[in-house]
Structures are given as C-alpha cells and as structure tokens.
C-alpha cells in the first residue's frame, strides 16, 4: 500500500527551520494495522499528513498504490483524498452547523454522488456505527463518543482503501475509548482496510499488531504480532 523512502519534512518559519521528519523509510502492506507512537513533537502528525496526502514532503518519495504522492498535482491529490483516504481526528472535526447525516454526506460531495443516494449511504453508515436514531442531530447535541462515531462514518462512507486516525481517542474517557477502539478494530477487519493510527496511549500501543515509534523525526518499527525484536528499516 505505502512505500516511503527518505521522507523528509521541514517547516521553515523565517530563519528557523524545524525538521519534523528526517528521512523516514517505511513499508505498509495492504490490510495492515499500524500504530504510530512517540513523544510529543516527534513528528507523528506530520507523518500522518504525508500518508493522508494532506501535504507533500520536502524530500523523498511516498508511493501509494505505486504512485508517488510527492509528485502529484494539487488536483490529483485532492481526488486521491476524496476517493481513497478516510481520516479521523482527535477533536472529531465535524461541521458544527450540519447534522450528523449531513456531516457524513460532506465526504460524498466531491464524488458527485446524487443527493438521494448520498443521504441513503450516509444513513446506512451511521446505522452501522449505532447512530441510526441520531441522523438529524447536530454535533453539539451528541456526546464525544457519538461525535467520533459520526466522524468514523464520514471517513468510511466512501469506502476508502486507507483509514488514518490521529489520536482518535485522545478526547474521550476510558470507557468510550475502548468502545471506539473496538469499533475501529471491527471495521478494519470488516472492510479489509489499511488502518494507521497515531496515539500516545501506551495501552493502545501495546496491543497493536505493528508499532511504529517516531522520535525526533525518525521511525522504528516493532512487529508485535510476531513478537520479534524491533527491526529498523
């Protein structure tokens, strides 16, 4: 699915330059579940942005299904995001003025889906995360866990190949966190997704099949499912 080689990202503000990523080499297979962990400021979110085609690296290449994201035009990146990448955020990022169903529909808008079809798909997606009764509620009328479910429906309604999550449980209490994690795990299996999740919750990290640890812009992969020693790519 992904093949990163020498991915570097620098942010420059005035004379200062921040090296968020310093030469990341990483391969993620189709259907993998990878948890990215690391200290704050380590570059986790930056890496996720590269994987989600939200931004281009300063140097290096990111192959997605054999295409180098780093070289795609803005229009093609936009299309890639619209069609193949689902993304969820720590603070849910729902549109506060739109209902749950309309929020989910926003993911289908760039695909040119007909309104009636859009509504039906959105309702279905919400039902599958247990929010069939909350279609017409505004985000402000939903609990944190419910809002994240809406966000998950929004990410998955278009049937993407990849689901990216940046600390999806960071704003939730423990009970809700486990519910959401179980939901995501179930959906990962059900849809055969490639699922990449950033967290700094060591509980989650421990139970992840594959763990990528980012420190100071460099990555270390631990294949925990096979219980092998850390391998450096």
């Amino acid at each position, binding site marked *: 699915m992904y093949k990163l080689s020498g991915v570097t990202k620098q942010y420059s503000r005035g004379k200062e330059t921040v090296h968020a990523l310093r030469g990341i080499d990483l391969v993620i297979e189709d259907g993998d579940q990878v948890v990215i962990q690391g200290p704050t400021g380590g570059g986790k979110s930056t890496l996720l942005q590269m994987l*989600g085609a939200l*931004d281009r690296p300063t140097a290096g290449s990111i192959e997605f299904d054999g295409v180098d994201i780093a070289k795609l035009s803005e229009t093609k990146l936009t299309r890639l995001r619209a069609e193949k990448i689902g993304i969820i*955020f720590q603070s849910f990022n729902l549109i506060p*003025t739109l209902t749950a169903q309309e929020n989910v529909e926003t993911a289908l808008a760039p695909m040119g889906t007909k309104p009636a079809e859009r509504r039906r798909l959105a309702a279905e997606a919400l039902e599958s995360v247990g929010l069939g009764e909350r279609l017409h509620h505004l985000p402000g009328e939903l609990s944190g866990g419910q809002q994240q479910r809406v966000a998950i429906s929004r990410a998955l309604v278009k049937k993407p190949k990849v689901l990216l999550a940046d600390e999806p449980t960071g704003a939730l209490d423990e009970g809700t966190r486990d519910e959401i994690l179980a939901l995501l795990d179930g959906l990962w299996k059900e849809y055969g997704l490639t699922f990449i999740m950033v967290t700094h919750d060591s509980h989650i990290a421990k139970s992840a099949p594959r763990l990528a640890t980012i420190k100071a812009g460099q990555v270390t992969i631990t294949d925990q499912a096979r219980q092998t020693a850390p391998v450096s790519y």
Partner: protein
Amino acid sequence: MFFTYLRRELRRRKKAAIVISMGLALGIALVITVNSVSAGMSQAQGKVLQSLYGLGTDMTVSKAAAAASSTSGQPRFNFGARDDSKNQSSDRVMVQGFETLKSSVVTQVADQTGVKKAVGGLSLSVIKVSGTFDRGTFKQNQSAGGKPGGGGSGAPQGQVQGGGADFSINSFSVYGTDVANLDLGPLTSSKITSGKGFTSADTNAKVVVLDKSYAKTKKLTVGDSVTISGTKFKVIGIATADSGDSAANAYIPLQRAQTLADSKDKVTTVYVQAADSKKISAVKTAIQKNISGTTVTTSADLADTVSGSLSTASNLATSVGKWLSIAVLIAAFLVAALLTSSAVNRRVREFGTLKALGWKSGRVTRQVMGEAFVNGLLGGALGIALGLAAAYTVTAISPTLTASLGSTAGAGAGPGAGGGGRFGGAGGPGQQAASKALKIALEAPVSVNTIVLAVALAVAGGLIAGTFGGWRASRLRPADALRRVE
C-alpha cells in the same frame, strides 16, 4: 450540498450574518436616503425654475448685458394739480430689464441645430400711480381784513391751505405671450382654473389672463376688465400657478404687449426647448456663438442662483450627504469584508477538514462566497427597507424649504438687469425678480434607479466581502484540519 450547507450556516450562525448585513444595510439605507432627498431637492428646484420658465423650457435667450448706464428708462409721471379733486391716474409701462431683442432673433434661435422650438415673450412691468392732486386754497387772514384802511400794503394777507397730493403707487408685471405658440413659455406652468385661456385667434385681442393670486387681491374675476395705460383689457381667464408662484401677474397677447410698451417687434426673452435634453450646453454654446449680443441662461445656470434654505439643504445633500454615504458605504464594505475573513479564520479547521475530505479549493471558496453574497442580499433588503422608511419619513414630515432666486435671474431679465434695482421701493422690475422667494415642501421620492443602485451595492458588498473571505479560504491547506484552533 451547497445549498444545504449555506442554509445551515446562515441559520445557525445568525449573529454573524446579522452583524455583516446590518453594516451593509446602514450604508445602503444612507445611500437611498441621500439619493431620494437629493432627488427631492432637485424636484423642488425644478418647481422653482418651472414657475419662471414654464414646462419644457431648457434655456432662455435674452439680450447680453449692456453697460448699466442707460437711464433713459427712468419713468416720469406728470400730474397737474387741479381744483376739482378729481382722481388722476397715470401708467408707466416699461420693458423689464430695459433690454429687448428683435423678434427676428426668435426665428434665428429656432434655426439653430439642436433647437426643437423657440418662442418669444415680452415681460413688462407696469407702474400705476393714481390719486388726487389738489391745489391749495387761499384763505384770507381775518384780522388783517378787520382793519380796513389801516395802512399796510393793502395786499390781502392770508395763507395757502390744504394743497397736496394723495396717491397710491401700484405696480404689477405683465407678460406678453405668443398666442400662436402656447406650449412653451411661462404660462405653461399655470393652469386655467376659471374662464378660458388664449387661443391663436387672440393675436391682437384686448384680452388678459390674470394670475389667481393677483386677481384675488384686486378682486377681479372673469368678465371684469383691466385698464393698462389707457387700453381696456377684458379678463377672459384666471390662471393658477402649479408651484404657487407665477411668472407674471397678468398675461396678454404678445402683440398687445409690444404696442403697450412701444416695443414693436421686440421681445425680452426667447424660451428654448432643446431637441435633446442631454445636449443643452452644446445648444447654449451654439446660440451664443451664432447670434451675437445674446445671453443664454440654462436651467442649470438659473439653479445656481437659487439661494435660501433649499439651496443650502441641496448643497448639503449633494456634498456632505454624498460623501458621507460613500464613506459609510466604504466602511460597511470593509467591515463586511473583515468580518467575513475573520469568520473564515475562525473556521480554519472546518475548511481544512473539508479539504482533507477531498473538497476542492473552489468548492470551499464558493461556499464562503455564497454565504457572503446572501449576507449582502440580506443587507440590501434590510437597507432598502430602512432607506424607504427614512425616505417616507422625510416625505411625511415634508420639511418646508425656502428658495429665492438671485435678482440677476428674473424671468428673462438675464444677468445684467441690474438697472431694475433703481425702482426697488416702487416695486419695479428688480423687485419682481427678487421677490421669487418660494416655500416648497421637501419630498424624498425613491426612484427605481435608486432601488437598482441599492441592489447593485448590496451585491457588490456581498461580492467584495466574499472575495476577501473566499481568498482566505482558498489559501487554507488540508493540513489545517489538524491545527489546534478554536
């Protein structure tokens, strides 16, 4: 999605929408008010000018100013003192301003390109002095008479008693109308409210149409007669001026007026209607160039001489009002633009998220522009409502304004009629011009153009604000979805 999102945003973020549209509304309301009040002002000025000119007159032609030295026109009255206390009366008929043009100038003017019609008229002013002029009676001194032969000169002693004059001066203005061309000239701004008006058959008839207010003060009605300088005129009609003030007290056929004033084939003023009201200044130039010795006064020139609270208010409306509304409008546009782009700033993560979801920049920008556009329309609707309310309030109150025309611009007297000032006390021609002080109720008519302008401004305001906001939104990156704002 576009309309759903737009509707939701506007409904659920009402406060922001109201603030933006209120700002625009204020600006637009001010533009409407200033515009309609200005229109009311020029309407009022139009009424003032119309009372002098009549309907459809674009300019007048009169004799060019001559050196103000001619004193030949000074009126003289000769009354003989009489024994019988008989009432004596004498009229002096003078041409107003003492400057006349040949009648041939009328055709000359009519022949100029751009002139649709030209009609001549003769303005006269009549001073009537009437009263008794008694010779004194000699009374012999009683005591002197009681000593006959008592020496002395023998001449009768006594004194003259009771000699003197008791007379009144009455002046009024007469306008000689070209009865063959009744659709142009001062009489067109009056309506015949009693009796009948002139017909082309009245060329040399001894008939007079009186202005209503003059007829009232003189207690004259249709069928009565008026004697001017020995000629008896029959009152055939009473004319009521549209604006409450008439150009003359009495109207008689032009030929009669020329005979009275001993000014055969002379006119004081040529009333000109241009073929194209937009080319008035070109016609003015042409006439002045091609017919020497003439002064052309356009409505605009005349308007410049209007003074009094009308012109003060009118100047205020056109200068202060205009700039104020432009300033407020610019401020409103800026505020709307700033508020819109600050609203975008507060929604950085929202728009970033949409971009991360695969929304094209254009789609996000369109959304922002759409919101701003609707805010503009709302502001426009609100502004039109406010502006109409303000304009109707002005019309309902209809504040009274006064207007006086500069004495240099009396009916056809043209600049340089200053000579008339010499008769100020006696109500001479100068007085006639200076007495053009009118009271006019101000209205604020809202024209379709004003409404169209308001809508255009609202749309422009919305688009400007939308462009600012949309530009901000277009520069957001999908990675902004992860920004920690709010």
